[in-house]
């Protein structure tokens, strides 16, 4: 038996597994209902909140995560494996558990609040913190692999030509790892947008789109939740198709 048709067939099964519920969902909503949902203020503002909070999380991860991923890619030190394992933890623990753990550090009774007087839960910052925690492995790991793929002799060549370590990093390592960093950022942003478990515990309000959908589903049922879900799916789909196309072009 030839390998190609078998692999095509098996691959198609998986694609259908993703496609069928999405299409079923989209076509269950009439264009009128979807149109109304599109202009519904509460839904649209929750979608914007979701996109924005995840963007903040991604920006924070870029500032703190790129140096970390570079260190992990370039240096060997005692306990490196432990650090790498630690970064992967948010992927493996249930996100509700992550939310509870975060609440202990950022909650109203936390040391942070007692010292600073700033209350985080229930704010946009809390949403970003939840998203950052669960989605940072995507960016850090992708950037780390990107840096690892760059032969260290590129940086050495730059230094031999008079560049400082900083200049070698910004003019050689960073642009060469750009693709991995960009794709890691997109993955992280996407993962942040879809986050529910950690966010719902840290910040039920302001409501992100996933929380809003959950709330509508729980209180009013499938029929009421569906239009909001369709809008969220369409918006994210369009954004990521565009981002992917732009990324590929680069």
């Amino acid at each position, binding site marked *: 038996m030839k390998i190609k048709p078998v692999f095509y067939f098996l691959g198609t099964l998986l694609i259908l597994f993703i496609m069928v519920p999405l299409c079923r969902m989209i076509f269950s909503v009439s264009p009128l209902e979807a149109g109304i949902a599109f202009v519904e203020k509460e839904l649209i503002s929750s979608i914007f909140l979701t996109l924005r909070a995840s963007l903040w999380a991604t920006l924070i991860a870029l500032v703190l995560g790129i140096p970390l991923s570079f260190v992990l890619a370039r240096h060997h030190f005692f306990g490196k494996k432990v650090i790498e394992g630690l970064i992967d933890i948010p992927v493996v623990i249930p996100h509700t558990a992550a939310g509870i753990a975060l609440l202990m550090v950022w909650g109203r009774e936390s040391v942070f609040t007692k010292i600073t007087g700033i209350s985080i839960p229930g704010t946009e910052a809390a949403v970003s913190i939840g998203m950052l925690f669960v989605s940072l492995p995507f960016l850090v790991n992708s950037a780390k692999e990107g840096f690892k793929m760059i*032969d260290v*002799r*590129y940086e*050495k*060549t*730059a*230094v*031999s*030509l*008079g*560049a400082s370590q900083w*200049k070698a990093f910004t*003019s*050689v390592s960073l*642009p*060469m790892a*750009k693709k991995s960093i960009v794709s890691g950022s997109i993955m992280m942003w996407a993962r942040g947008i879809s986050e529910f478990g950690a966010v719902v515990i840290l910040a039920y309000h302001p409501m992100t789109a996933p929380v809003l959908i959950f709330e509508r589903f729980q209180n009013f049922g499938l029929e009421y939740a569906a239009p909001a879900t369709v809008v969220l799916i369409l918006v994210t789909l369009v954004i990521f198709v565009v981002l992917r196309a732009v990324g590929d072009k680069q």
Partner: protein
Amino acid sequence: MIKLDRVFKNYGDFQIQDLSLEVGPGEYFVILGPSGAGKTLLLEMMAGLEAPDSGKIMGLERRRIGLIYQDYMLFPHMNVYENIAYGLTIRKEDKQKIKTQVEAVSKQLGIADLLSRKITTLSGGEKQRAAIARAMVMRPEVYLLDEPTAALDLSTKTQIQRLILELHKKDRPTVIHVTHDFEEALAMGDRIGLLFSGQLVQNDTPEKVFNHPVSKKAADFLGYKNVFSGHIESHTMSINGIDITAPVEKADKAYIAVRSNDIILSKKKLESSARNAFPGRVVKSIKRTNHVEVIVDIGVWLYVDITYQSYHEMKLRPDARIWAIFKTQAVKVFLH
């Protein structure tokens, strides 16, 4: 004068051990050694990119250094022009001045028409020229070359070798060139340092390094395919019933080595001054890139390199009877 004084460096499970070396101004010094000998590490220490654990490297501080790697290390996100201009841009030179200098150097290296090209579109030879240009535009006083021709095909390799030699002849910079290719070392170096497992085992003129290998390992590496061990009595080493005349009168435990291109093959016995002449049979012939390697059984197997022309003219079929002849001077002796 560049001076390395008792340099030690641990690098993973690998060491540079007690390495001392002096390279004079304008000298072309080749560090020759097999892969994994520590050549690149040594070069990177000289470039100040790795620090020795102990010992000193002198004469390279505050000097302009041009480091060129085997696989070019051209920045893939920049075009040829931006690569060559990199060092000058870092130095924040005037843009017009950068342009003039980049154009002058690329013209000299024959890549003036490639300046707007992406790195991925260049051939190996063009890439190495661009890498040389990038170093050259900084007017280095010392070039550190890490196997600069190892990734190139034979004809491009010769071109790049010639180019490097011309540049050296013209401006007389100090060159430290590491390679695993003994023919390249012979062709290019004023002096050769032989590096095995992080140790400099020999440091001499090419002629001395090649004609007087210091150990069996050195002889094997330098392309002596015929190495035998035994005792020498009255200028003779007996191996498997054949007596090879050696230039040393007596040695208890010694190796003798004969280079495969120092042996002549003849269909008849020659009346000649060569002291070593043995009848034998062709075992087989192996076609190499630019010569044929003939294995002759004279009681022991001798590896003999001949040209394709000779090979065709002599019609050397397996089992053909043949004489293998070499001078005593071609027999190198070194002690255990």
